[in-house]
């Protein structure tokens, strides 16, 4: 079976992280989300994977390249232009992306899977395929039950007893919703569906292709599976997903690095005196990181590689990107430090440059001395808070 990973989105709800990384490349405990997906597809025998790329396309393409490092074959369909030497994404919708590939090479010449590149899943594709074949379906949706209060975030679906889809509702209110079963954006299609997508225009699967199929008298089906679904569509979701993984609540996930003791893992070349630092797991400390004496690290926390946690600093329930330096006077609680931003679980953030808090947190590679004012401020804060 072949697959297409949709990786062309802008990821606006995960800003400011997506200013620098396309959403599928956001790391969940060190590994890009999309890498988990590729591994899962491979484990399900799916080894020819097309990926549509747009926003920050090179980050994805340069990481996965031809896919052989991952035991699969991967190729890209770039949606955008090169303007003044700069790559500019111009996405054409999920179905538009499929059609572009088909028009180019007829790649989809057998049953294929289409799914979003920004969620960790453990869907049993063999089961979905069996269901799809049994019903002679040209389009099968993987559905999931969610708590009724969450339906307004999703496309709600109603099926009859045979699994045939009888109604779609886009983000309905709880009262209007006909069910609490939602479309997860994971599909199995027959090549025929591509005939229903016009060429060269923006076209979306959920809101355009599926209704068009139904309008044309096609029967499409949905199978509800209770699978693990870690979606990183927003900063709060990303936080929750990281926390679940660290706490061991997701089957099949293994912590990277070496285990120092239960709940505490680290990479290599780590500078730390384990008896002089207070650590409560689950914590991962990245390679080449330095943790000073008297520091406190409370999990669930991921500390990137090349970080410097200065003596006495407190880091509690944080996710720190590579090369983050945390000053001795800092107390970080529930912060995501990424791309010179200090982000709260709500998504609100401080810009480290704009707020001039280099003396509190900075890029560890920055050898520039603090300004006199910053030095003075640091000393004053130290004096006031040492008691």
């Amino acid at each position, binding site marked *: 079976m072949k697959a297409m990973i949709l990786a062309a989105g802008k990821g606006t709800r995960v800003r400011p992280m997506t200013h620098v990384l396309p959403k599928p490349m956001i790391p969940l405990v060190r590994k890009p989300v999309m890498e988990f997906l590729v591994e899962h597809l491979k484990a399900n025998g799916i080894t020819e994977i097309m990926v549509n790329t747009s926003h920050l396309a090179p980050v994805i393409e340069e990481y996965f390249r031809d896919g052989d490092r991952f035991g699969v074959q991967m190729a890209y369909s770039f949606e955008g232009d090169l303007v003044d030497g700069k790559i500019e994404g111009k996405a054409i919708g999920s179905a538009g992306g499929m059609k572009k590939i088909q028009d180019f090479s007829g790649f989809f010449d057998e049953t294929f899977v289409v799914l979003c590149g920004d969620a960790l899943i453990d869907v049993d594709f063999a089961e979905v395929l069996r269901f799809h074949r049994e019903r002679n379906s040209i389009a099968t949706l993987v559905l999931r039950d969610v708590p009724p209060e969450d339906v307004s975030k999703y496309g709600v679906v109603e099926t009859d007893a045979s699994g045939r889809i009888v109604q779609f509702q886009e983000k309905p209110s709880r009262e209007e919703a006909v069910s609490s079963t939602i479309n997860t954006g994971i599909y199995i299609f027959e090549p025929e569906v591509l005939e229903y997508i016009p060429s060269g225009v923006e076209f979306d699967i959920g809101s355009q292709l599926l209704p068009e199929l139904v309008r044309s008298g096609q029967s499409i089906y949905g199978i509800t599976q209770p699978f693990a679904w870690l979606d990183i569509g927003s900063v709060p979701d990303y936080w929750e997903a990281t926390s679940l993984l660290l706490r061991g609540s997701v089957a099949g996930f293994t912590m990277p690095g070496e285990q120092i003791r239960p709940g505490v893992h680290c990479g290599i070349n780590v500078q730390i005196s384990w008896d002089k630092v207070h650590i409560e797991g689950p914590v991962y400390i990245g390679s080449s990181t330095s943790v000073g004496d008297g520091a406190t690290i409370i999990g669930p926390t991921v500390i990137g590689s090349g970080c410097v946690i200065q003596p006495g600093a407190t880091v509690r329930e944080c996710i720190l990107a590579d090369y983050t330096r945390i000053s001795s006077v800092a*107390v970080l609680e529930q912060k995501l430090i990424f791309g010179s931003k200090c982000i709260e679980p709500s998504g609100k953030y*401080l810009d480290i440059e704009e*707020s*001039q*808090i280099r003396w509190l947190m900075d890029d560890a590679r920055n050898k520039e001395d603090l300004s006199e004012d910053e030095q003075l*401020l640091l000393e004053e804060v130290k004096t006031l808070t040492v008691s």
Partner: protein
Amino acid sequence: MKLAERKIGANIVLEVLESRLGADKAVAFKEAVGSYLNDGVVSVVLDLSKVNFIDSSGLGAILSIFKRMPKGSELILCGATDPVTSMFKLTRLDRVFTMKKTVDEAVSALSL
């Protein structure tokens, strides 16, 4: 540097009417509040409810006012918005300063 003042006996409530307490306002802010201290004000309630951005200079200005408070007097902060609270929590200064939610709570907390 716009401040609204309200005297309460020998104490004063100063409401900062700027939305940004940054490098460009820090010095003026220090001087403005400092002038009340020069005039013999005892304790100060600083209402920060209109401030939605503070950087290191703004923080430094508040610290320097704190250091200037005469012995036995108090500086109480109130109305801190999320960005301001964040800054104080990040530096542990939320444990050094008395921070109240509202002006009324802050005034009640004044022990004079």
